[in-house]
């Protein structure tokens, strides 16, 4: 048991990720608003459906709501009626004019209650007008102010529209890719050592790591497809990041084909080690550079914040970093088993 502390660590971390990852609640958020298309000058009642809202007898009367645009144009609600703990009716008295000359303007809905923090629906409300007056509109929309916004008490991960609870997939999907990359990196080190020393042990380790890494990559693709189906609406789109990931997997699929197509052990080791090094240097720009420079739906790329943005806050990092470590260690364990199999196989073949 002495040398297997890291295996235990991987299991403990994985348990931590599953338990804490699921137990951490989502902060309150706005799921749905009806109607979403309004006209200026009318009195409207918005039905706002909340998620995970914590409306109690104490803060029931202190709920406030605003329609805002860039924090310069702010309109406070007339009245907030609590239907039940997940449904609000909010009355707005929309001014005659909008602070723009255009026909339609998008506003952000903010709902705030003590201890619940403020929930935001970004650019989800569209107000239309016919023949506006910009200066009158600007004046009418500047009367209110966002004051005394409350802060969410307690642990929680941010509520993102469309994502909702699936934000937790970050712990699995993203960690799998990170773990894959770490496994490939370690395998390249072993491939280089093999080419220098020509000891069959290095090739056994390197190839096992590539095999497990490729499994993780394929799982990354599958989990990504499931996630995409339920947020973007399709399993697969022609997005840069997705294409690049698919190409990387094809490159490593060619590695696996290469290994099974060569019968001679020495030749197989030399060829696959050199191919592995070559492949790794090709997928670095594929996964890390190109998607960042072009427009992409996928978070973390052109025009889309990924890590460090609002998608990932400190509470999520508490689970996300251990998750990467857990998957990496698990992968190393799997590769270790594979390597031991290969070593025995090699010994048997020599006899």
């Amino acid at each position: 048991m002495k040398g297997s502390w890291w295996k235990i660590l991987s299991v403990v971390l994985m348990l931590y990720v599953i338990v804490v990852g699921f137990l951490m609640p989502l902060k309150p958020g706005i799921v749905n608003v009806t109607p979403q298309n309004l006209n200026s000058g009318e009195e409207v009642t918005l039905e706002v459906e909340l998620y995970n809202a914590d409306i109690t007898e104490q803060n029931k009367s202190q709920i406030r709501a605003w329609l805002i645009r860039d924090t310069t144009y702010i309109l406070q609600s007339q009245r907030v009626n609590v239907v039940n703990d997940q449904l609000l009716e909010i009355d707005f008295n929309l001014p005659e004019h909008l602070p723009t000359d255009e026909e339609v303007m998008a506003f952000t809905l903010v709902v705030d209650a003590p201890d619940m923090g403020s929930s935001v629906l970004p650019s989800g409300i569209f107000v239309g007008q016919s023949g506006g007056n910009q200066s009158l509109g600007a004046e009418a929309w500047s009367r209110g102010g966002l004051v005394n916004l409350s802060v969410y008490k307690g642990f929680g991960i941010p509520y993102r529209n469309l994502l909702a609870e699936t934000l937790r997939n970050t712990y699995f999907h993203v960690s799998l890719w990170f773990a894959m990359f770490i496994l490939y990196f370690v395998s390249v080190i072993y491939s280089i050592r093999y080419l220098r020393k020509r000891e069959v042990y290095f090739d056994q380790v390197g190839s096992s790591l590539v095999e497990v890494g490729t499994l993780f990559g394929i799982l990354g693709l599958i989990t990504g497809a499931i996630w995409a189906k339920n947020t973007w609406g399709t399993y697969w789109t022609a997005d840069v990041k997705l294409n690049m990931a698919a190409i990387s997997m094809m490159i490593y699929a060619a590695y696996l084909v290469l290994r099974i197509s060569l019968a001679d052990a020495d030749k197989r080791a030399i060829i696959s080690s050199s191919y592995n090094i070559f492949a790794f240097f090709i997928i670095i720009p594929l996964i890390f550079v190109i998607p960042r420079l072009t427009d992409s739906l996928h978070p973390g790329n052109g025009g889309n914040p990924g890590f460090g943005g609002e998608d990932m806050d400190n509470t999520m990092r508490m689970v996300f970093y251990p998750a990467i470590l857990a998957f990496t260690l698990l992968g190393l364990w799997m590769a270790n088993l594979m390597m031991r199999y290969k070593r025995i196989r090699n010994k048997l073949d020599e006899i």
Partner: protein
Amino acid sequence: MRYKSIALTIIGFFYANVLMAQSGGPDFFRSIGKIYVVVAVMVATFIGIVIFLVYLDRKIKSIEDEISSHD
């Protein structure tokens, strides 16, 4: 035998997916803040690891057979 079980697992998984989509409408996966998407992702990851285990199991079995035939 093992190929069959792997194939059955995969088919069963997709079949369950289709069934859920039909019986609950498209809303089953989207109910309760889409938490079932996370469950599906975890199940997929777990199945992947199990497939790896089955693969390794078969390889080790072949070694065991070889050793026992040596004796």
